[in-house]
């Protein structure tokens, strides 16, 4: 078991090193793709804690993503704050909102939880769409650029910022997954009643997993907005929830590399099919269907199983 887990860490750092060297050889477009993958992977990692480990259902991750994207923009735009100040404040706001929402949402189970979290995301989406004076409404708003030490930061800076955040998020999830805390979360996910009988405080661990998932999604949102330079509510609509869920499921729930692989596959797929744009949606459906039918533990799970059996 230990060797498998260490191998995951090794693979991640090889990938991260390759990504860090990418700006030297590849153009802006490839950097853009890696930035997107990084942002989605952070979100999928958070979702993995809540869904893969803790066994709950969350189809509302885009709600946190949306808050994370809009609050720093508003704080920079209207209040003139610096991005590096706005980012932690936003994370704190998302934390508090998540904490408040945990009261009604975490009492639910299964399908009710699915629709409850989805309603939360739709509520957040509508709030940001329907107050145009503050958020630009459905037309979207321009994200102000960021200056550091008197210099305007370019895309390469955001690229490394996202890689750094991804590394931090990955290490956090990795050590959390292998700690006693992760064990408790998995116990809750496997069987709540048995976990309660073992003396595990289910409510506490569920809330913890929910908050980790919310905070990571919020950070991902802040990074996304800053690197994109422009946000509109469409980015955070219903299909984003589904997309992140699909990423996690395609990569493999409950595996640490799954979110990364899933984010990469689902982000790159539309760009591989850019010639036949209308087919993107169909392809995503077919990939999800194929993975669910033939790879119960996602792509990572299927590969790991192959290697173990050899």
């Amino acid at each position: 078991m230990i060797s498998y887990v260490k191998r995951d860490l090794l693979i991640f750092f090889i990938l991260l090193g390759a990504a860090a060297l990418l700006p030297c050889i590849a153009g802006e477009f490839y950097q853009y793709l890696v930035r997107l993958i990084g942002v989605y992977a952070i979100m999928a990692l958070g979702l993995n804690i809540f869904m893969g480990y803790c066994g709950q259902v969350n189809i509302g991750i885009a709600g946190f993503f949306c808050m994370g994207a809009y609050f720093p923009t508003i704080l920079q735009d209207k209040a003139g704050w610096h991005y590096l100040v706005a980012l932690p404040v936003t994370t704190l706001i998302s934390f508090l909102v998540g904490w408040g929402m945990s009261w009604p949402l975490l009492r639910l189970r299964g399908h009710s939880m699915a629709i409850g979290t989805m309603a939360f995301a739709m509520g957040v989406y509508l709030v940001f769409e329907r107050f145009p004076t503050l958020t630009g409404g459905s037309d979207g708003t321009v994200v102000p650029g960021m200056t550091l030490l008197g210099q305007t930061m370019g895309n390469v800076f955001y690229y490394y910022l996202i890689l750094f955040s991804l590394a931090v998020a990955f290490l956090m999830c990795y050590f959390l997954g292998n700690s006693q805390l992760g064990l408790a979360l998995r116990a809750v996910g496997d069987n709540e009643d048995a976990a309660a009988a073992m003396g595990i405080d289910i409510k506490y661990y569920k809330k913890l997993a929910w908050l980790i998932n919310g905070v990571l999604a919020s950070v991902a949102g802040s990074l996304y907005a800053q690197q994109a330079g422009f946000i509109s509510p469409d980015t955070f609509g219903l299909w984003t929830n589904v997309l992140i869920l699909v990423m996690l499921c395609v990569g493999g729930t409950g595996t640490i590399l799954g979110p990364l692989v899933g984010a990469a596959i689902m982000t790159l797929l539309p760009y591989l099919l850019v010639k036949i744009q209308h087919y993107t949606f169909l392809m995503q459906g077919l990939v999800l269907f194929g993975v669910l039918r033939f790879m119960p533990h996602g792509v990572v799970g299927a590969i790991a199983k192959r290697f173990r059996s050899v």
Partner: protein
Amino acid sequence: MFQFLADFLPILIVGLSLGNLFGLVGLAFTVIINACQIVNFAQGDFAMLGVAFCWFTITALHFPLWVAFPVGVIAAGLFGFLTEKAVITPLQKRGAPPFTMILGTMAMGIIAAGVVGVYTKFWWMKINPFLGNEPWKIAAGLSVDHQGVLIIIATVLLVVGYWYLLNKTRLGLALRATGFNREVSIILGIQTSRMMGLSFLVSGIIAGIAGILCAPLSAFNALQGLPLAINGFISVIVGGWGNPYAAVLGGITLGLVRALLTGYLSSAHAEMATFVVLIIVLTWKPEGLFSRFMIPGSKKS
């Protein structure tokens, strides 16, 4: 007084028709929930597929509406059956967790939306109102849109039909038994897999009818399925889990809240009201507002 009535009646009709639409989708959800304890997130896409086939038959094949309507409904029903055979049975055999089921049905929905989207280029599928564009004039300055009235009539017929199927036929007894306890039903000789297929077929047909009736009111495109499904599922939760009549009542509640908000306050926040109502119901009455309505063996509420 008359002015109040003239304002209020159209709002009421809009609310009722919208509510009945949500209620029909909720009923379609409940059909599957009762037989297999599964929430089918492709429900809206069944409706969307029905609309797509109906639209295709009218615009590309130039058939009249009375041919196109059954074609769309049957297509939706068959797609429901296909979903059950392609996703639900294999996943259930494997003992997959509930959210894998959700994703499985969602995958079928995305595929349906993708296929229709490829054909229509995600453009609107326009179906003309069934009885012409002129609204009924009840009195001077008081007119009613008959598409909404059609939805209400269809809902009443479908609910009565479903009630008859469930409570007065042996097939309905088998359906209820399958949902109540699968293992015991198998022992008693009920072919549960056939019952599950049947429930998806019936559910697809109901969703197809709902979608095609709604298509003239609000234009449908390939991506419109999931929002409809969410509204339908919210009416299931608001009404009461697993109770078909409660789902329709929950839908009507939602529709009326939305129409009243749109009519008397502003349309901007009507959509949000749905989610606020949902969160309130989930917090204060998680079993649903009408959960005991018409269930035999329990007090009426």
